């Protein structure tokens, strides 16, 4: 039938006959009559102004507290790309991958860093947030269930999944993130005097999220790790396979290595710092880091100059809110202090 008909005539007829017995008066319910009990939102002067005052006061208070606490944080950052320029130069060329290069950076701490002290490495200009970079991992491999990355639905050829030089042996851990792991070693030593240099005791555990360490990353089950990883290749940029990351502590080896886990939690911005070590508060350091001369001994492995990046080490203390910067406190303060101003403007019509 070429023409479409409107069946309305027939249907109205049917309706008519069916409704003849019942009244067509619509129900008298609040919903149908649009009379639902409701609160009418009104911006009353009292409400708005008092709201402004309250918010302003709150913001000011929080801002002051945040700024005070941010000011109590002691932080020191040393960029070492240029300090260790020779190492950086060496790492420019991939041929020198097996040549070791160390670098020592002395510095003076004028005040004691009280409490827990955290050691971070910080990268400038390293894009951990590229779309393809973030995707370049296999969570099912990292929980140990799919070590050979069979399940992973690879939309298109992702780099560092198969070792091209070894007939396509699957790489463990695969993907660009794992492959580009930060592999400098940073050791902080305390120079009590010119002759006595003691290594500051650092904890390498407890630097990851609990869920990462106990849910997201699991080693494949086997008698020992090396046998578990048979049939896989190490990532091309790695000097040793994943099951040799920490031979001393089995809980810190393989996929469960804390440094590895920290690296795998990709950063949101191209400049980021990641937790490297925590101060082990024993002996001299029970109060924190005492003032004095220190030096960082860095085994320089991670090349950053290729992409014009920079590296630095950061020592920092924390407060109740974590290592908050001044930004949040200032933002609160500015917001809070501009609110009374607004109130004032609204109310100064007298």
């Amino acid at each position, binding site marked *: 039938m070429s023409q479409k008909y409107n069946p309305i005539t027939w249907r109205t007829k049917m309706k008519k006959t069916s409704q003849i017995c019942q009244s*067509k008066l619509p129900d008298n319910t609040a919903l149908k009559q649009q009379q639902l009990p409701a609160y009418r939102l009104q911006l009353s002067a009292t409400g708005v102004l008092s709201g402004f005052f309250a918010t302003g006061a709150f913001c000011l208070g929080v801002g002051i507290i945040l700024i005070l606490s941010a000011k109590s944080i002691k932080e020191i950052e040393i960029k070492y790309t240029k300090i260790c320029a020779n190492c950086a130069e060496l790492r420019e060329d991939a041929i020198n991958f097996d040549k070791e290069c160390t670098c020592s950076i002395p510095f003076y701490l004028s005040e004691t860093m009280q409490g827990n002290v955290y050691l971070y490495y910080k990268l400038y200009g390293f894009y951990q947030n590229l779309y393809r970079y973030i995707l370049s991992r296999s969570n099912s491999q990292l929980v140990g269930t799919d070590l050979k990355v069979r399940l992973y639905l690879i939309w298109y050829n992702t780099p560092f999944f198969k070792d091209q030089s070894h007939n396509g042996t699957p790489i463990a851990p695969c993907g660009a993130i794992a492959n580009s792991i930060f592999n400098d070693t940073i050791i902080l030593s305390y120079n009590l005097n010119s002759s006595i240099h003691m290594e500051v005791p650092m904890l390498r555990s407890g630097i990851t999220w609990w869920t990462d360490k106990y849910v997201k990353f699991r080693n494949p089950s086997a008698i020992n790790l090396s046998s578990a990883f048979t049939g896989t290749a190490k990532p091309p940029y790695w000097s040793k396979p994943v099951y040799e990351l920490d031979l001393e502590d089995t809980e810190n080896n393989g996929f469960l290595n804390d440094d590895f886990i920290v690296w795998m939690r990709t950063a949101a911005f191209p400049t980021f710092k990641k937790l490297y070590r925590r101060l082990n508060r024993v002996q001299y350091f029970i109060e924190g880091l005492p003032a004095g001369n220190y030096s960082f001994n860095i085994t320089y492995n991670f090349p950053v100059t290729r*992409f014009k990046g920079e590296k630095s080490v950061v020592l920092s203390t924390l407060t109740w809110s974590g290592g908050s910067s001044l930004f*949040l406190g200032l933002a609160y303060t500015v917001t809070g202090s501009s609110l009374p101003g607004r109130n004032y403007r609204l109310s100064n019509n007298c």
Partner: protein
Amino acid sequence: MALCAKKRPPEEERRARANDREYNEKFQYASNCIKTSKYNILTFLPVNLFEQFQEVANTYFLFLLILQLIPQVSSLSWFTTIVPLVLVLAITAVKDATDDYFRHKSDNQVNNRQSQVLIDGSLQQEQWMNVRVGDIIKLENNQFVAADLLLLSSSEPHGLCYIETAELDGETNMKVRQAIPVTSELGDISRLAKFDGEVVCEPPNNKLDKFSGALYWKESKFPLSNQNMLLRGCVLRNTEWCFGLVVFAGPDTKLMQNSGRTKFKRTSIDRLMNTLVLWIFGFLVCMGVILAIGNAIWEHEVGTRFQVYLPWDEAVDSAFFSGFLSFWSYIIILNTVVPISLYVSVEVIRLGHSYFINWDRKMFCMKKQTPAEARTTTLNEELGQVEYVFSDKTGTLTQNVMVFHKCSVRGRSYGDVFDVLGHKAELGERPQPVDFSFNPLADKKFLFWDPTLLEAVKVGDPHTHEFFRLLSLCHTVMSEEKNEGELYYKAQSPDEGALVTAARNFGFVFRSRTPKTITVHEMGTAVTYQLLAILDFNNIRKRMSVIVRNPEGRIRLYCKGADTILLDRLHPSTQELLNTTTDHLNEYAGEGLRTLVLAYKDLDEEYYEEWAQRRLQASLAQDSREDRLASVYEEVESDMMLLGATAIEDRLQQGVPETIALLTLANIKIWVLTGDKQETAVNIGYSCKMLTDDVTEVFVVTGHTVLEVREELRKAREKMMDSPHTVGNGFTCQEKRPSSKLTSVLEAVAGEYALVINGHSLAHALEADMELEFLETACACKAVICCRVTPLQKAQVVELVKKHKKAVTLAIGDGANDVSMIKTAHIGVGISGQEGIQAVLASDYSFSQFKFLQRLLLVHGRWSYLRMCKFLCYFFYKNFAFTMVHFWFGFFCGFSAQTVYDQYFITLYNIVYTSLPVLAMGVFDQDVPEQRSMEYPKLYEPGQLNLLFNKREFFICIAQGIYASVLVFFLPYGVFAEAARDDGAQLADYQSFAVTVATSLVIVVSVQIGLDTGYWTAINHFFIWGSLAVYFAILFAMHSDGLFRMFPNQFRFVGNAQSSLAQPTVWLTIALTTVVCILPVVAFRFLKLSLKPDLSDTVSARLSAWGWDPVSESPRARVPALRAAWWSREIPPPPLCPGGSGPPPRGVRPRRGPSPPPPGALQPAGEEEEGPAPLHAEARPHQLPPLGLRLRPPGGLRGAHHVRQEHAAQLPGAGRLRHALRLRLDREPAQEEERQPGQPPRQAPEGGAPPPPPAPLPADSGPDRAQAQNQKQKGPRLGPPLPCPGPVGRLKSLYFFTPSDPHPRGREPLFLNYTRMYRREARDLLGLACPSRRVRLSLICVCVWFHFVFFIWQVEGASERLLCCRRGGWSTGGYPPPQPPGCTGWLGWDPCPGLRLLVGPWGWWSTEEDLVPSESPSSP
């Protein structure tokens, strides 16, 4: 179900031979099977999908889906698009499927009805769908006609049968159909079986009242007309059986041909929305291009070097190509600025509004048991923007219940009742109605007051007898006599019914009719007249005649018709009588009565015979039969003798004047388009208050030639222009269409004019070269009445306004003649009343009384518009806030099309997290209670001016969205750049950032919808809180261990919600973002409310201040006195100028006799002159006194305030004398305290009519009163006594808070009031009863001090840090500092502590020296 039809070539002519299926087969006519369904089980999916993808939006999303399947481009998982798309498609498909299911059901039911078909000489039961063209079928009483049949014979004599055509045209009265004489004898089956006539007729068409064809049988030709046809859909009544020949079957029947698809109407918001969506697409492409360029540059500068860690994809060989791919990726990511849910949500909201209309008990007519019905669900918000209403008169404004009221017989007028003094008596003082008890057949309900007419009948006045004889003979009414003496008339038009009933009561009882005879009881004796011919009525002839032979054998033609037509065809000898009758006619028309002229003519036998021959020939003609018949009729209907005239009253419907007054107040222009004659129309205009005594002049255009019409229009324009009243009230038009040159001049015309134009003048005025002139003139008038217009002209007028004014038009009517107008206008409203349902079927909305129009427009329309606008604003806002974040992130992620959020969040944001609260707002929101929108009709104006959602508003909400996206992105960015978690781990990981941004976004948009929702019902609460709860529930579920263990690659965010949302920093960031996003909005709204409120703010603010319960309006607990005092701004105005009631304005047509007020009436205008006028916008004295009273809080006002009257003459450009007085609502600061304690407030107690002289203060205003006593005692200050020039009648207009008031100082009172109010509230808040200058100064000082302290504090903190790095501080003292922290990268985007950004620009300390980073030393 059988397959019904195949495609056939168009027919030129239809041939069908009875009882010859083989012969008919070869034409392949459609069978009688109908199919209204669109799909069957197999075709449903493909066809429905195909139809759905014809929607641009759906195709667009399909395109996006395909893009996402390209791995190089895909930046989101496929499900982010497919889930919403499938959801939308599925909902639509289910709806379509249900619709189609019901269509299948009804098709089946219809197709399987049984009918008796004559096959092979015997009657057999057949299903309807098996009936073929050429079959003869038998119908029985009360059966539906199965196809379009040629009536062959029936059980009644002369092949007559009766049908009801309700389903076809909605008319419930019965109609007669008659078989042609040759076939009417074919009564038995055997003869019918031998019948082999062939019908040759027109091809199928949709004209219900026309049919032309011929029957060829036994070598002769018989003409066929519509009189011989039984159309499908009719029901056989009062006829035992009949036989018919199937001519058209199934889809070819007139019923099916008529049920075409109606034209799809779109609203202006729809069109605007489509434009905006296109703009957004443009914007989207721009963003895509910017980001693609960024990507190309980044890949070139950075990406190439970063390839060690992340090599390019194999397909990508250059930065340029990478940019190209990233363009498409960003198109996918950013597509959420135009979410698919927009269109669906809009439909849902409109559907909801339609249901509200259907459910409205206040639009339900108890008498007729008809609810209002929204037949189109897509036009609701347009109801809130109507500017022009075109109304039919009869049946729309009037009840269409006709009452025989007066008549003129041979120059004597009957019907008026005179009292003893010879004055016309009024309704209330009328004596008993005329007693018709002499006549046992009289209708008891018929009332007539003038006994002289009955006396004339009783004494046997021959003219009077002839007069009523005509009325009892010349009509098409059918009578039904269930019991002896109980007559029921079934008339096609109520006029006829009224006339025949009148004749019945006066002793000329129409008893029964057959095709050839009419039996009348004349004064108790039955007389049978032979009916020779009926010259039927149509719109062109505007008359009908019958030719009868009375028992004596005399042939006489009786004619009744419209006066314009009939008076021209009278015999010259009746000239004198004609003059008196014309006077009577004018008088009747002046009273708003419908008139008909009656005439007769004697015919002699030979002439009649000869004329009957010619008539037969004309009716046999195949071509132009109508015209030939018309000319034959015309010939006989000439030189008639005038008998008299009748006047029928068509009462106004209840509530019409109030409705019109209210709509006029709402700035809606009402044009009445009627077929009635000018006087009737004008009078109805007066009685329904369209024309009032305030109208300065009524221009009447009645010219018959182009030149005359042009001249009359020109004169009207000149008068308007020259008039001294040139103060503009045309502000609305000027604001809206400043560029429109056409109307700008005349719309500024003040004063009230009305235009009445006649049908024949209108024909000229609507010609192409004059239509603009006409429009210009008409639009400058307050009321326009077009009389004697044809249905086509109605549509043309609507089209004209629609085309040139760019305003929303609404046409309302009830009859078939309004259908074209209803279909043309933006919105068509059908009155489901007396005249069938054709208008209703063509309409978009239908209800049964005109007065419901006010509720439809002012309540439902206004709310729909408001809700839709709010919905759209918020919708665009939330999606921009959501999407633009990706744009900002692009600059930090190498433009790699990385999304900020988790992909599940992107999928669910629009369909789960934010859809329901905004839907609830779109469906339920109310700004002011419904009563208020009736009381303040000005509230309707924003819709007409399209203020709530236009391009400007769109940009504002877009800007707000972008602002929110900036904050939602950059605040967490600033925080995360440096911060660490409380266990020392990094905070700035991608997943935590995603969760923080998403959470703050959801909270921000939820708070925003909370602010936008003005009417918090339980449903709103449920949806808003529920959405937040669902967000967190889904967030935690998605990040849970369980899901991760099952699908480790799909749920990557495991543990994220738990650990991120446990961080105080994250919550502090979210809180700050919310505060910073929302507070400016609140502040802006608040400032707007206090500085430039619109009327709806004012009204709702009043409500809240008075604490009225929106539903019951009962005052709640005692309102705090102070607040009441702020709000009480109404007192009656001071007595008006002495001598105010001047002479009636010039040029106004004096009312001819007082017209009785309609039921539920208004106060007579005079009463209001003494009393103070109510305060409402543009008040006119006759309008709705309750309006003013409403504005006063129940319980009286506790304060008074000053009202100053000003004379318009003192204003620049004043001259608008009729609007001379303005109430300026002007309150001096301590106004309400000025009242003397003993002095009564100037306000009426609750419910009072116009407030009497002042009464004592209400007792509960204690504090206020106490305060008042402390104040200086001053008398109430009135404005300066002003000279009162001449004709100031009454208070005409009160300028009520209209921001667009053309008053040169129009905004001033408003402004003052509001700022003062808030000042007071602020004062109250600070606990300062009345701040003096000193207090104020100290307040300022405190504020400044506060500012100063924080300023210094911030700067100090910043500089201290700076100094610290200058001198090395605790960083690297002792050693040459490599590069002090906090001093690096001063310029650029490097994530640095916010202090630089925030403090730097102040310029206090950022000297050049400071900005230059110190030289970094080389490594040891």
